[in-house]
């Protein structure tokens, strides 16, 4: 089945998977759904990398033969998701700790009023479908823009690359990851959403670099993974301090309103 330059094949399913997991990141605000989306993107990225003609399996793990590059990327993705998950768990625990200082009556009343108002607003927002319209519309535009950019401005499908139908999908995926990362950073309402956006951008550049360098430059590949982990750690650190600060204000975070 022809859809423009695309053909219904395994790569197309992979591309659909990227869009599906990306939509989980863009449309939904729940943290666990977002982490699932991020993990999915990383795993699909590993699958895509393993299809590169110059990425050959050079490591035997039990019955499986995998490439070291793919293994490094997989470990990086799982580590990043683990860091973000641990941060969320710690944040919830931090907010539940009952070591609040005693407040005077007026401050306590003001805080109760603020929490009630925030909770009311949270309820209204939860049941309002209109909140999903902007992200869904943005998602649709993003898919079209990705497709258009991949066709109009190819960076991977150039005469220097070996003949393969894979490169159109690589083109689509790197544009998709970069653009969806930037969109998530722009729409972010929490620190960790910014980190997810940045991680997608790094993943996009990582994929493009690997395609253009044809697997050369192990130090660069390793450093890109290190940078991804550092970004996750850095934002997790900032997010922890941020929620520590919120606790001192004795106001709940957005998650606790639900």
């Amino acid at each position, binding site marked *: 089945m022809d859809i423009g330059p695309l053909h219904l094949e395994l790569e197309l399913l992979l591309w659909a998977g990227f869009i599906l997991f990306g939509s989980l990141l863009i449309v939904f605000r729940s943290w666990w759904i977002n982490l699932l989306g991020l993990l999915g993107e990383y795993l699909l990225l590993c699958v895509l990398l393993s299809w590169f003609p110059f990425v050959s399996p050079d490591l035997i793990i039990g019955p499986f033969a995998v490439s070291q590059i793919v293994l490094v990327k997989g470990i990086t993705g799982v580590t990043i998701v683990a860091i973000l998950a641990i941060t969320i768990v710690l944040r919830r625990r931090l907010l539940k700790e009952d070591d609040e200082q005693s407040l005077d009556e007026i401050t306590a009343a003001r805080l109760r009023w603020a929490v009630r108002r925030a909770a009311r607003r949270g309820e209204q927002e939860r049941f309002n479908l209109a909140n999903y319209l902007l992200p869904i519309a943005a998602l649709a535009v993003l898919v079209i823009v990705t497709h258009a950019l991949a066709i109009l401005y190819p960076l991977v499908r150039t005469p220097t690359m070996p003949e393969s139908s894979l490169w159109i999908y690589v083109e689509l995926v790197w544009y998709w990851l970069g653009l969806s990362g930037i969109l998530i950073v722009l729409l972010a309402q929490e620190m960790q959403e910014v980190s997810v956006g940045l991680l997608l951008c790094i993943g996009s550049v990582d994929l493009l*670099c690997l395609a253009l360098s044809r697997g050369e*430059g192990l130090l660069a590949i390793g*450093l890109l993974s290190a*940078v991804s982990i550092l*970004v996750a750690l850095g934002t997790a650190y900032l997010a922890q301090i941020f929620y520590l600060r919120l606790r001192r204000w004795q106001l709940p975070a957005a998650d606790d309103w639900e």
Partner: protein
Amino acid sequence: MLQLLLILLPIIIALYAYLLGRQRRLALWAAGLALIVEGYVSSFVSLDHSVRLLGAVFSLDRLGQLFVYLFLFLAAMIIISAYALNQGEFPIPMVLFVLGITCAIILLDDPIVVSLLLEVVGLAIVLGIVDLPQEPVGLLPIPALMAGLKYLTMMVLSGITLVLGFRILVAFQDTPQQALYMKLAFGLLVVGFGLGTAVVPFHLWFPDLAGHASTAVTSTLVALVQGAALLLLGREFMQTPQLLLGNPQGSLWLTGGAIVAALVAAILAVGQDRLKRLAAYAASYDVALILFAFSLANPQALQAGFMLIIHHGLALVLLLTCIGVLAWSTGRDDVAGLVGVAYRMPLVTLGLVLATLSLAGIPPLLGFAARWSLYGEALARSWLYAAGMLVAAAFFLLAMVRAIWPALLPTEQTVSYRLVPWPVQVVIGMLIVALVVLGLYPQPVMDVLRAAVGVLGP
């Protein structure tokens, strides 16, 4: 393997200093020892002898050696003043870590790896931003955290833009569409360096960051990180001259844009009432001029550009140290806090004045020596460039005079203050001497730069 020692020694001592935590005196001694050994090692590394590790080549040339010495000196100055002014536990390990990575940036020849290392350095500095000893971690102001997040975001975007630019540059070097991809790579590199070094219009993260971080963090950022990034840019323009020469339109945009950026940064500086933010705009103004020097793409301008990087580190560390002293001594960093300072802290005032004059390019300081040939080059291209440089310098002087003027007001009106610690006085004195001596006699440094530009240049 001395090259690897240059990189690993500061990083290992940084880890040690970090683990020492509140044992700041011990961390200071360890750092001092590491810097001395580092200086000794860097003088014994055989120049232009390369070592291969993990597919990357490490080698040190005369230009690199000069910058290793400069960064060691600046790191020592920052560490001493951060310790004496009690700027938290993180500055010492942070400066050492950044120094180690900076040495790696100087030694490595792979621009993609270097771009990623710049990103790593930027992420490490985020730790320092939230380390404010006067604010317990749980009570850090939200704007400080937001400034940290903004910085982290910008560094990541800068890093990936640079990686992308360099990768495209390498991948399409010998293809028929080289000119097109060269333009794309050029644009990405300009945006990447602009974001990383806070040139107008990519500067918005920097004043916020400088306003909330300690002066040790800002000094590290300005002297080591911006210095290393600008060194990489200069080397790239030297080694790949077709990046500018093969793209006359882009080159023209960069040259004109750099002058406009310097002018806008200087004008924005006039409106600042907080000294830390003012220093950030001063750095942005100075970086724009360095970018202008590199954009001219000829040996004299490149030489002036490298000299300006040396000046950038010395002058801005002096300015920021003086501002750090004022913030520590009077408890405020606004312009009104300077009232009467000239009578109570004459050395600090002298440091502020000399840093300002040097950044404005007034003789006989290093800023003038570094810019002298640049004025000639600018005039040779178009009088508009030279006029732009002079007007930007005039606006910058206006901004600084407006800020420093209250220092000369009568002592009776001054706020309460603490005496300046003697180690910081020594640091200010040494930086002043460096600016004056190199301004009066820049020849030895110029010779090294001339030789380097001759070897690496087109």
